[in-house]
């Protein structure tokens, strides 16, 4: 089985490669990268001018909802959504039902992922049993079963003591601790960013400090323990500053991610175009313009390591309720590449190489996953992008089981042309 990707621009930051190359895939692995490679019996995928061949994109913050919430998403539909969004691998959050705090759940997830046979799935385990913050889960057993990181996502790691111990213990196992940073007492029953728009609409607010207080706490603990620590879905400018300051003083074990909605939207979306749209309700909330701009700066200056979607599917019925009763979250796998290219690359904020670092190289590095490069001999996980193709987001056409996106109808520039996992073309964009 041979496949030749012919005529594309290969952007492989790990190999410092950016130029016209052919890629030959043989038996699921990258056999050769070179100019004018002979066809020699291989199937040929002719790439159109301008198309980009990159190491497979990796989303390290995805809610696949299985087991327990299959009405929102299943591993099969979630990974179909992933490959349609250009992702060859996803890391899935443990806030399923039951919570993934046990190797039995990890094994189930991996079995379902193997059956779906689309994107690679890397389970993230819970830090504490049932993510209650009371007793540490068996991180060793979970790592052996296949977990690649630990978090109590959806909730913060409750106490400084548990975070300290988890960082120390996970450090032994060589896996990072990931935290959804939010001071519960400051968050209260808030449903939107504490600012003018929420105040005017009478929605209870969540200040940026609710996030940054815990980011600061965790950075101090990362410095204390030396454990690898990663900040989830950062939204507040104070948090970004805390990470930037830590990196500037030489802290190397702290990394962070930003979700596309936090560098594209602001809390103005609470009112415009429609008031109280539950598809702009997410946690952390859409913040004000100064926060959005800080995320853009952090992406450009290198403070931000990873773009991750926080893909959070919810059934339409669950979102069709009063704003304060609606669940937090939006789907993100299939809107990420168009938003990154339209708002970051074509807007001149970052180059293609940096985009690939944020979406592939760094996610692999932070979670210590295979991938992130098109190295000869490595598994052929490759994404082909059509950066200049026009895309109109259509919620009803998403592969995800849920359609909760605020980007319905948006016209953007930047598309996924094809997704290849282990040498197999698992997605082709027929519109291109």
């Amino acid at each position, binding site marked *: 089985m041979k496949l030749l990707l012919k005529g594309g621009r290969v952007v492989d930051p790990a190999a410092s490669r950016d130029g016209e190359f052919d890629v030959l895939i043989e038996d699921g692995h990258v056999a050769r990268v070179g100019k004018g490679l002979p066809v020699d019996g291989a199937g040929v995928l002719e790439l159109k001018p301008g198309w980009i061949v990159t190491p497979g994109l990796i989303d390290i913050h995805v809610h696949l909802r299985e087991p327990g919430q299959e009405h929102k998403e299943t591993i099969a539909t979630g990974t179909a959504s992933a490959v349609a969004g250009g992702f060859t691998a996803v890391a899935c959050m443990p806030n399923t039902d039951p919570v993934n705090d046990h190797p039995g759940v990890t094994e189930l997830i991996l079995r379902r992922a193997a059956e779906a046979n689309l994107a690679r799935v890397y389970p993230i385990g819970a830090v504490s049993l049932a993510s209650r913050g009371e007793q540490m889960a068996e991180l060793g057993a979970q790592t052996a079963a296949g977990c690649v990181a630990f978090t109590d996502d959806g909730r913060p790691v409750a106490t400084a003591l548990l975070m300290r111990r988890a960082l120390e213990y996970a450090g032994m196992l060589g896996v990072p601790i990931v935290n959804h940073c939010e001071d519960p007492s400051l968050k*209260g029953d808030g449903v939107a960013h504490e600012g*003018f728009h929420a*105040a005017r609409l*009478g929605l209870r*607010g969540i200040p940026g400090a609710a996030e940054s207080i815990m980011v600061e706490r965790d950075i101090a603990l990362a410095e204390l323990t030396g454990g690898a620590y990663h900040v989830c879905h950062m939204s507040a400018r104070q948090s970004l500053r805390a990470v930037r300051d830590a990196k500037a003083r030489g802290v190397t074990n702290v990394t962070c991610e930003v979700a596309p909605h936090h560098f594209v939207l602001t809390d103005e979306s609470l009112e415009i175009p429609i*008031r109280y749209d539950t598809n702009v309700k997410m946690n952390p909330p859409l913040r004000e313009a100064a926060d959005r701009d800080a995320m853009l700066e952090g992406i450009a200056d290198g403070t931000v390591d990873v773009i991750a979607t926080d893909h959070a599917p919810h059934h339409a019925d669950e979102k069709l*309720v*009063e*704003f304060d009763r609606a669940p937090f979250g939006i789907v993100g796998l299939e809107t990420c590449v168009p938003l990154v290219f339209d708002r970051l690359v074509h807007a001149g904020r970052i180059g293609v190489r940096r985009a690939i670092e944020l979406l592939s190289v760094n996610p692999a590095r932070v979670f210590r996953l295979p991938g992130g490069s098109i190295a000869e001999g490595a598994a052929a996980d490759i994404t082909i992008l059509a950066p200049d193709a026009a895309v109109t987001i259509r919620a009803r056409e998403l592969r995800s089981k849920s359609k909760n996106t605020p980007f319905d109808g948006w016209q953007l520039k930047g598309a996924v042309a094809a997704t290849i996992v282990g040498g197999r073309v698992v997605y082709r964009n027929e519109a291109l």
Partner: protein
Amino acid sequence: MLKSRHLLGIADLAPEEIAAILDTAEAMTEIAARPIKKVPTLRGRTVVNLFFEPSTRTRTSFEVAEKRLSADTLSVAVAQSSVTKGETLLDTVRNLEAMAPDMIVMRHASSGAPHLLARLCRSAIINAGDGMHEHPTQALLDAFTIRAHKGRLDGLKVAIVGDLLHSRVLRSNVQLLNKMGAEVWACGPPTLMPADLPRFGVRATTAIDEAVDGADVVMMLRIQHERMHGHFIPSTREYFTLFGLTPARAARAKPDVIIMHPGPMNRGVEIDSDVADGPYSVILEQVANGVAVRMAVLYLLAGQDAVTD
């Protein structure tokens, strides 16, 4: 007539529409003075009063207004239990809509609940208070009461004092008064001020003396006793000391000041009984005017085909 078929908030009303509602309410007060307080305007129309939060004043005020206009009315007090039974707001309302009402008057604890219905339901929606967001008929009846005493709204100094953060009365009143040219001062402890309060178009202060000084109108907002629990205030006693409207403080206002309160009042917490029951208090007038203003809103939303008397 109004541009929208719903009344969701003051935010959606133009100044001319506010003036039209107040002028129409003027005509409606005359009906209350008749021996037979009833006109056939909404004969054959069905109005559902759907209250998801307990309310005495607003619910009865709407009911009286509807009955005086000859509408068929139906009041549904939805117990919290029906929420726990799992029915969504939308399903509750669609079930009621199967009985073909023309208008739904709704009070709900969630900000934006009437906006959800207005997008997805057939009936005209009248917001009788949504969470901390808006209470448009309260602001209209307040404006009506002010206009009755002062003859105008523009150029007046109006001080609103109390729990600003949780108040839908504040949010509706500020918008209405700004649209009609009044100068609004908002006063309360910093813990009970909404974020970015000056952007609401008010002068914000924590000093009640400054807010009340030279005011034409002082509007007191209710302090809920449970606010101590969120660390908003240390005690109702301390609140009264710092923010309560006493006769001495009221004396700093204009000599012809009117004192207002949307109710229900906490005597001795936000307002001294001597002020609440004193000569400048128009608190019971507000209640009476509520009926006329709600009649005006119902009449104007019913539109062209209402039976004219």
